[in-house]
C-alpha cells in the first residue's frame, strides 16, 4: 500500500514536470538561413529539431551555435546540464546533431564573442568565448587567428583520422553522460563522417548505441549532404544552408526512427 502511494506520487511528480527537448548542434540544427538570416526565432522554430519538439509536445530549448565544432557541441550539452538542469522541475530529452569532424576549437588568448552570430539561441554557452574556431573555409580575421590558422589548416588536412576518432570519443562522452543522468536522447549527423574503414574507428563504433543514433556510420544520410545531393537549394541562403523543406523531411526521418527505437518520449 505504502509503495503504491509512493509510485502514484512519483507518477504525479513526473506529470508536473515541464517537458523539454534540448537541441544541440551547429548552424544546421539552428535552422540557419531557412529565412535567409544567419539566426532567427523562425529559423529555430522551423529547424528539424524545432519540428520534432512540436511533434513530441515538448518545449524546444535550441542551444545550437552557428559555426559550432563537435567539441563545442559536447560542451553545450554538458554546460547546459551543469548550469540549467533541474531534475525536480524538468523532464528533459536531448537531440544531439554532430557536425563536420575537421572543425577545430582552440583555446584563445583573449575573450571572444560568438553570441552575436547565434543571436537567437535559447541559451548561450559562454564557454565558447574562450576559444577561437578554425573552419576550413576561413583563413582567420584577427591577429591570433591569422597567426595560427595556416598551421591548423595543415593539421586539419593531414590529420583527418585523428579528428574523426576524436569526434567518436565525444559521441561516447555525451552518450555516457546522458545515460548516467537517465536522460532520453537521440543523435544524428548534420555533416558526415568519412573514415569508417580505419581500425581505430571500427573499434569505437560498436560502443555507440545504434538504437539511439540515426544512421550511425552512414555518410550518405547526413542531413546537409543528403539533401544537397537530392538537389535541394535554398535561394535565400548566402552560405548554402537548407531551407524549410529539407528540415521538414529530415524531421520526418528522425521521427520515423524514433517510432521504432523510442529514443525520445512524448
Amino acid at each position: 500500500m505504502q509503495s503504491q502511494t509512493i509510485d502514484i506520487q512519483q507518477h504525479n511528480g513526473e506529470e508536473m514536470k515541464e517537458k523539454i527537448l534540448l537541441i544541440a548542434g551547429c548552424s544546421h540544427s539552428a535552422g540557419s538561413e531557412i529565412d535567409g538570416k544567419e539566426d532567427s526565432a523562425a529559423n529555430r522554430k522551423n529547424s528539424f529539431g524545432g519540428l520534432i519538439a512540436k511533434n513530441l509536445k515538448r518545449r524546444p530549448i535550441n542551444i545550437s551555435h552557428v559555426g559550432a565544432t563537435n567539441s563545442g557541441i559536447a560542451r553545450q550539452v554538458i554546460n547546459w546540464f551543469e548550469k540549467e538542469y533541474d531534475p525536480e522541475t524538468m523532464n528533459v530529452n536531448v537531440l544531439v546533431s554532430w557536425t563536420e569532424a575537421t572543425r577545430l576549437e582552440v583555446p584563445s588568448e583573449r575573450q571572444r564573442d560568438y553570441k552575436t552570430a547565434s543571436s537567437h539561441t535559447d541559451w548561450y554557452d559562454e564557454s565558447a568565448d574562450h576559444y577561437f574556431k578554425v573552419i576550413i573555409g576561413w583563413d582567420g580575421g584577427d591577429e591570433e587567428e591569422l597567426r595560427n590558422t595556416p598551421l591548423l589548416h595543415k593539421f586539419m588536412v593531414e590529420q583527418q583520422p585523428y579528428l574523426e576518432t576524436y569526434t567518436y570519443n565525444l559521441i561516447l562522452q555525451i552518450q555516457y553522460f546522458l545515460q548516467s543522468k537517465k536522460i532520453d536522447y537521440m543523435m544524428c549527423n548534420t555533416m558526415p563522417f568519412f573514415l569508417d574503414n580505419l581500425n581505430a574507428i571500427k573499434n569505437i563504433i560498436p560502443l555507440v548505441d545504434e538504437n539511439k543514433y540515426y544512421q550511425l556510420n552512414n555518410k550518405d544520410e547526413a542531413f546537409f549532404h543528403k539533401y544537397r545531393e537530392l538537389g535541394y537549394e535554398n535561394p535565400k541562403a548566402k552560405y548554402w544552408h537548407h531551407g524549410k523543406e529539407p528540415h521538414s523531411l529530415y524531421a520526418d526521418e528522425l521521427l520515423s526512427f524514433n517510432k521504432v527505437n523510442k529514443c525520445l518520449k512524448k
Partner: protein
Amino acid sequence: MFKKIVNKIKSVFKKISDFLKTPYIKYKREKEYKKRLAELKKRDPFIYK
C-alpha cells in the same frame, strides 16, 4: 675497405640526388595538400567570420 669507399660514394650521390629532388618533392606535397584542402572546403563550405 673497397666496399666502404663504394658505400661512401653511394651515400654522397644519394644526398646530392635528394637535394636535387627536394624542390620537386616540395612541389608535389604542396600540390597534394592543396588538392586535399580543396576537397575539404567542398565538404564543409561554410564560412563564419
